[in-house]
């Protein structure tokens, strides 16, 4: 992850996978588009080094959660588009549930000031 800006949140490993899967739910997207989407949607809180996206994409592709093929972007440039597979959708649901449970649990511990 980027070391340039300490104020930006550092992403835990594995959560990047979750973010990519979530981003792709809106339709197929190429690498640069995914990077931008994450940045924008998180209101620039999450800064992803674009190059570091690719190992995650390869991992997801090897697990067949996303599938890829070459296509043409909106302004007629060649790009490799990734889309969510059925398995990917299921995985997204699983991961999201896990994340929610995790954050809720952490939240409970943090707001518990009595003990």
């Amino acid at each position, binding site marked *: 992850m980027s070391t340039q800006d300490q104020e930006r949140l550092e992403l835990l490993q594995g959560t990047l996978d979750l973010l990519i899967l979530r981003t792709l739910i809106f339709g197929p997207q*190429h690498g*640069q588009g995914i990077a931008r989407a994450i940045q924008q949607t998180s209101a620039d809180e999450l800064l992803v080094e674009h*190059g570091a996206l*690719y*190992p995650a994409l390869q991992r997801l*592709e*090897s697990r067949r959660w996303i599938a890829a093929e070459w296509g043409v972007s909106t302004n007629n*440039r060649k*790009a490799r588009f990734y889309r969510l597979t059925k398995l990917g959708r299921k995985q997204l649901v699983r991961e999201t549930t896990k994340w929610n449970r995790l954050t809720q649990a952490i939240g409970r511990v943090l707001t518990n000031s009595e003990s």
Partner: protein
Amino acid sequence: MFWQKRKPSDFNAEVEAHLALEVERLKGQGMSEEEAQSAAQRSFGNVTRAQERFYESGRWMLWDTLRQDIRYGLRGLAKSPGFTAASILTLALGIGATTALFTVVRSVLLKPLPFKEPGRLVRVYEQSPDGKSPFNWIAGGVFAQWKKQSRGFSDLALVAPWMQYSLSGAGGQLPEKVRAAECSWNLFSTLGVKPALGRSFSAADDQLSANATVVLSWGIWQRRYGGDPSIVNQTILLDAKPYAVIGIMPSWFTYPDSSIQLWTPVYHEEKTEEIQAIDSHDFTAVGRLQPGVTREEATAELSVITRRLHDQHLDNPFVSKAANSRPLIDGMVGDFKTPLYVLLAATGCLLLIACLNVASLLVARGAARRRELAIRAALGGSRWRLLCEHLTESLLLSAGGGGAGILLANALIQWFIAARPDMSRIEAIRMDGWVAVFLLGLVFACAFFASLTSSVSLRGGEILSSLQESSRSHSAANARVRLRQGLLIIEVGLTVVLLVGAGLLLKSYERLRTTDLGCVTRNVLTMRLSLPEAKYGQGAQRVSFYQGLLERVRSLPSVQGAGLVRVVPGQGYGGDSGFAIAEHPPLPPGKGQNAIVRWADPGYFKALGIPLLRGKTFDENQQLDQAREVIISESFVRRFFPGEDPIGKHLLTIGHRSFEVVGVAGDTRFQISEPVQPMMYFPVYANLLTGVPPWATLAVRSDHDVSSLALPVQKIVQEFDPELAVGDVLTMDQVIGKSTLDAGFDATLLLAFAVFSLVLAAVGLFGVLSYVVAQRTIEIGIRVALGARKADVLRLVVGQGMIPGFVGLGLGVIGALGLTRFMSSLLYEIEPADPATFALVSALLIIVALFASYIPARRATKVDPMVALRYE
């Protein structure tokens, strides 16, 4: 995780596309081209790193690295063809020789016999009552008792393995002598083998009253009968008697050895009194253990039965008291264990020397590449990768050596089979899966050994110091020289061990060959005659044949003498018999004397140059029952007539007939490697126990090359009897050669290994010294400039070579003293620590070392100090 491998070019294209899109977007936001480019690069991060990570993803890295190493290794080896060729040839020699010998050891000694459950098969023996032969042959009468009473064996079979027949008949083919074995009907079932065609013997065939039957081997069926299946149930003539062929054995089957071409039922062939005798040890036996019974238990039971029989015949001194046994495979190949393992160890030494040589070459090669390696290390190449590359290079060399080694091994095996017809199970020698595994193991072991011993120069600190070092300092080079000298010491040590072994075997063989047999051996021809009973049933017929033949043969020009004897000296034991001396007091009951029995014609002793020390030879006119003379050997007199004149005394033997001692002949050895035993000679024209002997060996002496007489003599035999086949037409030198075949072979092979290793060691020494001179050229130049003389330079260089030479020699001598102990069973009248051999080997090694040092030393003395100092 297995996914379709994406090409790196595909990924690079994606990265390019990504950057292009980002640049577009930033330009859309108002940046200039260059600003957009650098911003896009920044937000991407390290492109190269991404590409590297993609490249490394997955488990392909290992395979990729290996492929790369192999490619670079091949390229590097191709660039130095001399080094590559030398290494591959050296390794091929070592790997080929070791693989060939391992094949022989595996096929002959380790592979189980091809019978059913061969681990349950046992060779059974009697122990001779005087204790001298623990694995003595068996008497038929004793066997009969074993068969009847034993419970520990599920099956016992009797075999008489030294039979010969004159095979004739079936359409005018020439008669030939064939080796055969008589066996009890259940031999094949005991071994668990079925015939390929027809049937094997039944109990009904194995009786005196049955029709004569015979089982053929595959070999003779193919060779003489063209593999025609209709030969089954036809009749062939053995010794002019008709035998019905009832079956053919499979092609892989041999018992007891591969020279046996047919089997006949023993109870049908042997006379009743011979097969029932309990003191005449003419047979061998093999048995199959009952399930759950150990060999020791079953043998102990047989010993009890034997002892009981012995105690019932206490007056007969030749009945054994106990039985003995060993696993069938030991019985067949036991004699070859030590020689084969010694040869295998020798090839192991040769292989080790080859590896050391290659390692030394690799060290030298590493020195030449040290700058390249240093730069690579500085650029971040891990030492592990460098080691892997080094190992891969060694593996390539080793694989090349293995490939060439297989060809060499094949050739060696073919030669081995041709050169050792005396070896048991020779038909089983072939390469199998175990040999392939062994070969692969050798290839890897050689690669690991060579690369690890030579990789010392890849030590981390050394790599970087090479960059700093100038030619004037040579600290790392020193370490390399010391390493190579260390390798050389081990090489020299192993070479000395091999040389000592070879020297001992050679000396032993020479002693063996020049042992005096007690008779003339130059230009003597021998051949075996055997008169079939059908035509020569009467003693008088045999006598007239022998006499006529001898007369004709003696009349040939260039024949200096001819005689008949049971077997010539050096041809084997023959047989022995018990006897008593009439004029001596009778021996206590249970004590017996026996001596080797020979029958000979009166002219035999003169013909073969055996001196008659006392008395005279047989009377020619005394024949058949009237022949009552016996001639005894010198050692017979020493043992049984100490201090008295034996002439005129009488021996009681062979059916308690009395024979008068008329002469004393000089000693002859029955086997060249065995000590002299007492012998008694009976006239061949006499009626011995079974009448006039129906077979004998004709010995013919000539004054020049005797092999030219082979054909004329055989023609004479043909004239007398066209159907008579002679066997084993050999000169005495060939007879001796046959009995010393194994000793000669072992000596030759070990000598070849020793010579090869000496050459390798000399080459290694030469290489080390050349290296030293090249490394220290500047130093030598300085010394010469400061006033060193030629002699000083010579001493410096030669010392560098001779010191490891001497240390290696010392280690080798110590090693040899310890190891040659194991081959003492192969040595004849030589001590394993024979000082003459050790001295000779040491001298040889020093001379060779000096020779190998000569050229590099001369080169050193030619160093021009000005030129040397200018070199940087």
